[in-house]
């Protein structure tokens, strides 16, 4: 089956793709922390921050349609949170942007800030995932000190989540093919439970086979890979540029609240 992989552009080649995964990860982590820590009056600062990941995405040749489609896909949860803000905080506030001045409420300010922070951090995250192969990211995380067991778990999650989704789709299709009449809620629930049980048993079965495949190739509990990561001059230059960009905005761009 075909899956819409979020990392489908990670196998392209561009100057951004060639950067070391550790450097990209650290930059995105610091960037995200900075964006999240901004006060609610910082819509203008957020707009400036957005330029960074946006430029990276353009430079890496990632289609913006793909980026915004994925932001929209995960937006409903944040939308609910953001749109509830104007309902419970109606304190009036004045906002200035250049020569323009208008009155609004703190709730609306908070709503726009949440949406802004979400969009900007998602841009950064998609920029990281779309320009870094997952395996390189895992190797980078391991080199940065993430526990090996967690790295292995993440590797298996990435490898088998699509296999699991495929199995679930097949079970649902088999169910749909034999669903000739509408059943009561309780009966539907029973069928759903047995479908989940079947998926669970198959997953355990697959896990046993994977364990056999690993042992057959000499696995003794120690995870060995050939790491291909190397920090080069261009990585250091990217790190420096990112630090200058983030600190520049942090110190020189002012919030818009009066």
């Amino acid at each position: 089956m075909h899956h819409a992989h979020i990392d489908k552009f990670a196998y392209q080649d561009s100057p951004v793709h060639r950067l070391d995964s550790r450097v990209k990860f650290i930059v995105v982590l610091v960037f995200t922390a900075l964006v999240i820590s901004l006060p609610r009056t910082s819509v203008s600062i957020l707009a400036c921050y957005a330029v960074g990941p946006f430029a990276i995405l353009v430079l890496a040749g990632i289609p913006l349609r793909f980026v915004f489609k994925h932001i929209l896909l995960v937006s409903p949860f944040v939308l609910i949170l953001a749109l509830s803000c104007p309902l419970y905080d109606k304190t009036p506030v004045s906002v200035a942007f250049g020569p323009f001045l208008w009155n609004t409420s703190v709730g609306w300010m908070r709503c726009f800030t949440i949406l802004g922070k979400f969009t900007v951090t998602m841009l950064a995250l998609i920029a990281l995932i779309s320009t870094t192969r997952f395996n390189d990211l895992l190797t980078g995380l391991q080199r940065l000190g993430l526990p090996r067991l967690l790295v292995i778990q993440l590797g298996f999650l990435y490898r088998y989540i699509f296999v699991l989704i495929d199995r679930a789709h097949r079970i649902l299709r088999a169910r749909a093919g034999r669903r000739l009449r509408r059943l009561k809620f309780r009966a539907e629930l029973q069928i759903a439970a047995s479908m989940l049980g079947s998926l669970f048993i198959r997953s355990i079965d697959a896990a046993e086979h994977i364990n056999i495949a690993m042992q057959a190739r000499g696995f003794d509990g120690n995870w060995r890979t050939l790491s291909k990561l190397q920090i080069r001059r261009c990585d250091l230059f990217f790190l420096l540029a990112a630090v200058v960009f983030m600190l520049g905005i942090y110190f020189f761009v002012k919030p818009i609240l009066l």
Partner: protein
Amino acid sequence: MPKAIEIENFTYKYPDGTSALSDITLSIEAGARLVLIGPNGAGKSTLLLAMAGFVKGTGKVLVDGLEINRGNLKKIRSRLGCCLENPDDQLFMPTLFDDVAFGPLNMGLEAEQVKARVAEALQTVGLAELGDKAPHHLSAGQKRAAAIATIISMSPKIITLDEPDGSLDPRNRDNLVKLLKDLPQTLIIATCNMNFAAALADRAVLLDKGRIIAGGDAKEIMSDSKLMAEHGLEVPHKTE
């Protein structure tokens, strides 16, 4: 002729008491291309697992002269490569390169040797350009070839393959036959597909209900229409 596999009176029961393999005695010469044929549930896969030491029963199993026991397992698994039925179980690493490198790295080889083995194995199965691909981006035929590459890279003397032709279209099946024919190792293949078996094997062992029914020349056994029909099998279209 040295023996690749020697099994004497091997019996195995599932934990619920159901008999899986009964009194199996089998000797496979080094360099042989042997097919284990039989209907579904005959015990073919279990026998392959027993050869790799994953199934512990009563009796004796020797791989390349080494008896399977706890102390020998690592040596045995570097001499016998075991390729499972579902390539998705065999390919568990994030990229094909890492999957093929997994075995050689566990054998303690140096990085350069590992890279050379991976390159050679991928070249052999015709996937030299796809090392950086994630396994879920490969087609069914490519996954099957990749699963074989994960074994070849360990340079084992013996390779066992469980239903390697499953879910392959005729072109991919032909490619697989060509690939397996060119491998120098002793091949032990479990299959229900008699045409596939006939295209590859010089020896055949017919299993049913956990017992060996017949063993010997592949053409002879597979052309015995009465024997094949009795055990739910068919005579291959061509027994060249």
